[in-house]
C-alpha cells in the first residue's frame, strides 16, 4: 500500500511537472549527462593521441615533410584569401551592400548522434561557454548540417537538416524566387532526404542532365545565403496546380560527420 502511494505520488509528479520545473530539471540533467556523452569521444581522442605517439621517427619525419608541403600550399591560399577579402570589402563599400562577415565559425567535434523515427539530432562538444546560442546554423564541408536546438555549458544539441522539424527558406540554383525546405524525417536503408515545396511551376528538377542544387537563403536569418542543402531529385505538380514540390537528396556525410562548424552571429556586425 505504501509502495503504491509512493508510486502514485512520483508518477503524478513526473506527469504534471510545472513548465518551469520541467525546464530546470531538463537543464540540470542535461548538464549531468553531458560528461557521459563526451566521455567516449574524449577516450577516442586519447586513443588517437597514443596511437600517434607510438609512431616511429621515420613516420614522423614523413608526416612533417607532408605537413610542410601542405603549409606552403595553405600560405599561398591564405594570401589569395586576404586579397579576395579586401576586394570583397571594397565592392561592399562601393555598392553599399551588407557585409558577409556576420558570423564567426566555431569548430566543434561530434560527441554522439541519435537518429530515429522521432528525432534526428547530434550532440557536439561546444556550448554556451563558446558563445553558441540556440538557433545558430551548423555547417560542414558538405553543406548545411542543421541548427542548434538546445545549448548546455559545454555541449549543444543540433537538430539535423533531415529532421522533419527542420524548416527553412531556400532557393533553387539559377532561381531567385524563394522556396521552402523541410526535412523528411525517418528513412531506412537509404540516404537522408528532405522535401522542397512552393517551387514555381516553370522550374524542373534537372538542368542539362544534372539535378539542380538547393541553396540556403538568408531570408530566415539563421543561415547566410548560398550554402548547399542538397540536390533536388524530383519535382512534381501539387494538387493545387500552382506550385511544385519534390524530394531533396541530402549529403551522405550527415551520418558520418566527426567535426562541424557552428556559425555564431557576431553581435556588432554591420546589418
Amino acid at each position, binding site marked *: 500500500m505504501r509502495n503504491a502511494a509512493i508510486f502514485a505520488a512520483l508518477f503524478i*509528479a513526473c506527469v504534471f511537472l510545472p513548465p518551469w520545473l520541467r525546464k530546470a530539471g531538463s537543464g540540470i540533467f542535461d548538464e549531468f*549527462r553531458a560528461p557521459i556523452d563526451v*566521455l567516449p569521444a574524449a577516450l577516442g581522442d586519447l586513443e588517437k593521441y597514443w596511437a600517434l605517439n607510438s609512431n616511429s621517427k621515420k613516420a614522423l619525419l614523413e608526416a612533417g615533410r607532408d605537413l610542410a608541403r601542405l603549409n606552403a600550399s595553405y600560405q599561398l591560399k591564405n594570401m589569395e584569401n586576404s586579397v579576395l577579402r579586401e576586394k570583397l570589402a571594397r565592392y561592399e563599400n562601393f555598392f553599399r551592400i551588407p557585409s558577409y562577415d556576420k558570423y564567426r565559425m566555431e569548430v566543434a567535434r561530434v560527441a554522439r*548522434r541519435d*537518429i530515429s523515427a522521432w528525432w534526428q539530432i547530434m550532440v557536439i562538444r561546444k556550448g554556451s561557454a563558446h558563445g553558441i546560442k540556440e538557433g545558430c546554423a551548423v555547417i560542414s564541408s558538405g553543406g548545411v548540417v542543421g541548427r542548434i536546438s538546445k545549448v548546455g555549458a559545454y555541449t549543444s544539441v543540433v537538430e539535423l537538416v533531415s529532421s*522533419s522539424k527542420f524548416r527553412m527558406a531556400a532557393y533553387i540554383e539559377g532561381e531567385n524566387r524563394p522556396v521552402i525546405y523541410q526535412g523528411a*524525417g525517418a528513412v531506412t536503408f537509404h540516404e*537522408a532526404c528532405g522535401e522542397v515545396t512552393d517551387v514555381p511551376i516553370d522550374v524542373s528538377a534537372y538542368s542539362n542532365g544534372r539535378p539542380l542544387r538547393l541553396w540556403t537563403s538568408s531570408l530566415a536569418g539563421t543561415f547566410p545565403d548560398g550554402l548547399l542543402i542538397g540536390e533536388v531529385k524530383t519535382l512534381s505538380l501539387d494538387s493545387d496546380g500552382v506550385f511544385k514540390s519534390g524530394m531533396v537528396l541530402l549529403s551522405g556525410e550527415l551520418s558520418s560527420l566527426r567535426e562541424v562548424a557552428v556559425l555564431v552571429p557576431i553581435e556588432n556586425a554591420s546589418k
Partner: protein
Amino acid sequence: MFKSLDMRVIVILALNLCYLIILGVVNSEVAPYVRIMLPSIFIVAPALFLGWGWAAFIVLLSAFLMSAFLPVRFGILAALWLASAFAVRHIRFRFRALDTFSLVSLQLFLNVLLVFIYACALAGDFVEWKAYILRVSWDMAFSSLVVALSGRFFSMLPVYICSLIDVNCQISEN
C-alpha cells in the same frame, strides 16, 4: 525506504550508467541504419532485485538522464518507466527461479510494449506514414533481437557481479 544503502544499489546504478554510455556509443555508430532501444534493461534489474524506494530512484534517474537532451516532454518518459518498474516489481515473485525463458520473456515483453508506446505517443511530425512505420518496425525488430539474445545476461549481470563481491542479490520480499 532508503535506510540501507547496500552494494546491490551501487552495482545496479553503475550498470545502468554503463548501459547509458554503451547504448549511446553503439547508437551513434549505427545511427543512420537502426536505433537500438532497450528501455527494459534499465528497468528489470532494479525492479526485481531492489526495494521499491531504491528501484524507483534508479529507474527515475536513468529515465531523466536518458531523456534529458531528447525533444520529448521532460518527465513523461520517467513516468512511463516508473509505471513499468512498478508493474514488474508487483509480479517479481513469478521470476524467483531466474530461469532464462521467464527473464527473456519479461525483458522482451516490456521492451516491445515500451517501444510500441513510444511509437504511438511520439507519432506526429513526419512526412510519410509508410516510412515512419517501416522505420519504427525495423528499430523494434532489431531491438527485440538484441533483447532476445541478451535478455538473460542483462537481467543476471547484477547477480553475477554481486556474487563476485559476496553480496546476496536475489528476488526477495524487501
